[in-house]
């Protein structure tokens, strides 16, 4: 049977099921197939904080959304074009996100009275398709007995019914892979490897995957196949990568680049733990990972390692930063290199552990006692976590300071195609990171020659880094105020004033090493600027494209450095009549911009635990642009 093939430029698919149904794996495999096929893509995993929430219930629903396209895209998509729902709860939980005309594939097998009741359905919505009371009206619903067909397909392997039905996610993957013409080899190779030690399970999964594909090809339920052509990308080698993986690689690269052994002190916390897991695999690079007894010990050990001449790193999320605050202050005072990674999640307190948010910016900026300035960098996409981590290492080592890197839950688990950078020693893709250890005395001559641990570099204001084991440079550092230069304890009022200002000036000087901002203003005559930081880069960029497509002009700037701000930021802000600041918080960057530049920043703020939706943001931008024009016209 030959099927009609329809060309599409982009599709958003959401796989949804119970937390035990393997939806993250299914989505991840579909993503890998799409990546290898050459589509541009962005993903959005979304799962409950509970490892096994009650089966079949709404809180137990886990989903994975993938947006793939034949062109460069920036977000995981505002709404799914296709929903695969493995049970009634998955249907109900995601129904509200579906636009009219969306395709819904449901596993009809799991629409039992018990499961319907758990999901809060009084009647089976599949029984009233096309009827006046059809709650799924306006959607193209395809009930398919995924479980039943999976069990039948893998019968020959003699698995229990429970084990057999577990392969239903691979059946669903096979079906979707057929529908969108995905290459099957990567998934087949993956299954063969993952289950190599359990041949029955391996064969069942492979068979279910192929059966799903064959079902799509033969059934009359699906009359159309879709084709999304590869996206044009610049030359290079690409891979699909999540933010946490890219971040871990960036830390290893920072270590190799600087020649400093990496020491990670960390305590498990969602959504940062995967960085600890990943780095613990890379001992061959001289990486030591220390799973500490708590967040404070994690950063303490990292500071100890930095004192010993390692690249000290600690990874956590917002609640962990709260616990590490005093230690970050110690690193500010002792002026030791330290990379502090905050994979932000919904707060306050335990908040939303598995959901994304950008609400730790002010904690990173000010969350310590005393005047304790800390440089802040933020990645803008999953792949960009690599470069951001290298940059954090550069600043930490060059300026002898703790550096905060603000990732978030969306970047951590989301993925995108990433052009593999050149990491060779003479690569221009990576900055120079020179530890420049002190080896000689730096004050006085001859018999009086001494080492002064707080005698600074004139350009960077960084202090010398002399590690234990260096003869003649013995010195003591600590949390008490230092005398300028010699570094001994000082309670002198004038010295304290000087040292507070000097530590601030050192951080401010980092701006001298930053490139000018990249302002995306195609026409050069936009009156409104959208400025953001972190993972909102995608939605802001997508919103700007929409606005421009509709005939408006808008400029976009995205900040990698939140402290210090780039030197030209004030001048860029001043060029525009209005500035919109979209953030997943209640206006933290807005507050900093207003305070620093006296700019009347307009906030666009959502704290829903989800990335901003490009379409809604585009409306807000368009409204501001229109308002700006009207204000201009109404002037005398």
């Amino acid at each position, binding site marked *: 049977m030959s099927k009609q093939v329809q060309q599409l430029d982009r599709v958003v698919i959401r796989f949804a099921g119970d937390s035990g149904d393997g939806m993250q794996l299914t989505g991840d495999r579909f993503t890998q197939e799409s990546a290898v096929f050459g589509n541009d893509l962005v993903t959005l995993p979304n799962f409950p904080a509970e490892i096994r929430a009650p089966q079949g219930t709404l809180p137990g629903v886990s989903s994975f959304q993938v947006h793939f396209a034949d062109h460069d895209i920036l977000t995981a998509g505002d709404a799914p074009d296709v929903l695969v729902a493995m049970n009634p709860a998955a249907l109900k939980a995601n129904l509200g996100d579906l636009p009219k005309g969306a395709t819904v594939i449901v596993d009809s097998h799991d629409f039992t009275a018990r499961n319907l009741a758990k999901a809060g359905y009084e009647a089976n919505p599949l029984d009233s398709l096309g009827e006046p009371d059809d709650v799924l009206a306006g959607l193209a619903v395809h009930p398919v007995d995924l479980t039943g067909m999976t069990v039948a397909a893998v019968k020959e392997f003699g698995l229990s019914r429970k084990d057999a039905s577990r392969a239903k996610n691979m059946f669903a993957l096979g079906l979707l892979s057929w529908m969108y013409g995905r290459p099957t080899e990567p998934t087949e190779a993956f299954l063969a490897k993952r289950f190599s030690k359990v041949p029955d399970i391996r064969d069942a999964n492979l068979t279910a995957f192929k059966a799903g594909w064959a079902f799509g090809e033969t059934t009359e339920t699906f009359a159309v196949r879709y084709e999304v052509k590869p996206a044009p990308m610049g030359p290079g080698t690409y891979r699909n990568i999540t933010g946490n993986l890219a971040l871990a690689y960036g830390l290893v690269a920072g270590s190799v680049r600087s020649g400093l052994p990496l020491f990670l002190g960390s305590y498990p916390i969602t959504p940062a733990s995967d960085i600890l897991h990943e780095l613990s695999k890379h001992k061959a*690079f001289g990486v030591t990972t220390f799973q500490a007894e708590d967040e404070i010990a994690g950063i*303490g050990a990292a500071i100890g390692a930095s004192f010993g001449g390692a690249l000290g790193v600690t990874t956590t999320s917002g609640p962990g930063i709260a616990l590490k605050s005093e230690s970050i202050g110690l690193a500010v005072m002792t002026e030791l290199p330290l990379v502090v990674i905050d994979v932000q999640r919904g707060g306050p307190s335990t908040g939303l552990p598995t959901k994304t948010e950008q609400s730790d910016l002010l904690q990173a900026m000010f969350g310590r006692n005393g005047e304790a300035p800390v440089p802040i960098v933020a990645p803008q996409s999953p792949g960009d976590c690599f470069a951001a981590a290298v940059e954090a290492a550069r600043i930490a080592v060059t300026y002898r300071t703790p550096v905060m890197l603000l990732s978030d839950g969306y970047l951590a688990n989301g993925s995108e195609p990433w052009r*593999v950078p050149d990491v060779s020693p003479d690569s221009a893709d990576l900055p120079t990171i020179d530890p420049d250890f002190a080896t000689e005395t730096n004050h006085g001559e001859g018999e009086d020659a001494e080492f002064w641990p707080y005698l600074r570099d004139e350009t960077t204001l960084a202090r010398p880094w002399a590690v234990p084991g260096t003869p003649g440079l013995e010195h003591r550092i600590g949390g008490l105020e230092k005398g300028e230069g010699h570094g001994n304890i000082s309670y002198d009022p004038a010295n304290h004033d000087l040292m507070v200002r000097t530590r601030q000036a050192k951080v401010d000087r980092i701006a001298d090493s930053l490139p000018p901002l990249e302002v995306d203003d195609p026409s050069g005559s936009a009156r409104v600027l959208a400025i953001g930081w972190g993972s909102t880069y995608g939605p802001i960029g997508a919103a700007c494209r929409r606005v421009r497509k509709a005939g408006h002009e808008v400029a976009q700037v995205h900040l990698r450095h939140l402290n210090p701000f780039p030197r030209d930021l004030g001048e860029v802000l001043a060029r525009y009549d209005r500035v919109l600041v979209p953030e997943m918080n209640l206006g933290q960057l807005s507050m900093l911009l207003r305070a620093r530049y006296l700019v009347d920043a307009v906030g666009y703020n959502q704290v829903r635990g989800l990335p901003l939706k490009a379409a809604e943001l585009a409306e807000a931008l368009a409204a501001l642009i229109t308002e700006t024009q009207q204000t201009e016209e109404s002037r005398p």
Partner: protein
Amino acid sequence: MTTDSSTELGMPALRTGTELVPTLADGAPPATAKDYTSDQEVRWCPGCGDYAVLKAVQSFLPDLGLRRENIVFVSGIGCSSRFPYYLDTYGMHSIHGRAPAIATGLATAREDLSVWVVTGDGDALSIGGNHLIHALRRNVNMTILLFNNRIYGLTKGQYSPTSEAGKITKSTPMGSLDHPFNPVSLALGAEASFVARTIDSDRKHLTSVLSAAAAHRGTSLVEIYQNCPIFNDGAFDAIKGRDTAADALIPLVHGRPIRFGADGAKGLVRDHETGGVRVVEVGRDGVTDDDVLVHDAHAADPSTAFAISRLTDSGYLNRSPIGIFRQVERATYDDQARAQVSAAGHAAAGEPADRLAALVGGGDTWTVV
């Protein structure tokens, strides 16, 4: 460097605490206490027990024969935590309670350092209790000097986690309600591999315990009874008094019967009813010399050491064992961590930069030309 043979065994061979620390060159003049004295003015109260400990440490460190630049003292917060400023070694005066965590990172990152932690009863047992027990269970190669004056000194006289219950202080005008920790019992409970107790005023004993602690590979915990003349003066009078010390101090010497009191009239025997130990008068009630417990610091099972530690009063101090309660060989966290890194490094072929390229360029990739 970790040797290949130890890597093959999956566990590094046991070594002395300072085995990997560079020593002074042959023929180099031996260091003196003066070499270890920094130019900073010591600022403890007159009569503070810390002076005696500082002098003892400054005099003892040259005996190790190590290069001074390879010795690091890390401290927390409190009177005793000012210690590093007064020693001309590398040092860090860190934050309250966290010195064991910082020292853990340092000792793991650097096998060639002799790492010392100086802490007090408040720093180590109150705010830093968690880090202390975890350092002890991990057995990181470092020596922890726990100055116990049973009071908060730097904050001016509140009761501490080792103060006797009912203690009247500024924050407890009607008497404290907290039951105190016995630091030695706590350390043994955390399965510390080296646990000892000594006294600030007994220079000879203090030095011999420090010497054994430094030689031990793993975490050595040394509790030092230290008098605070301002806020808790006389806390140790019974064990220091000319007339009372003999009955108050129970010296522990490995391989020797545990005898004390005037002319060694008293001794410890096993108490078969409680499973613990008890004090007896040797020669009375049918107790003979043979019944007296012979101290075995190297016993794998810490039960007897724990039983001995319970002889210390939890109220006003009238009696306490001193010496090395326990010293056993156990693989250290840092040796094993370095062995894993070393083994992984040896197993990998090629330059780090090339391997980095393979790492970032791994996984499912595709090429666009």
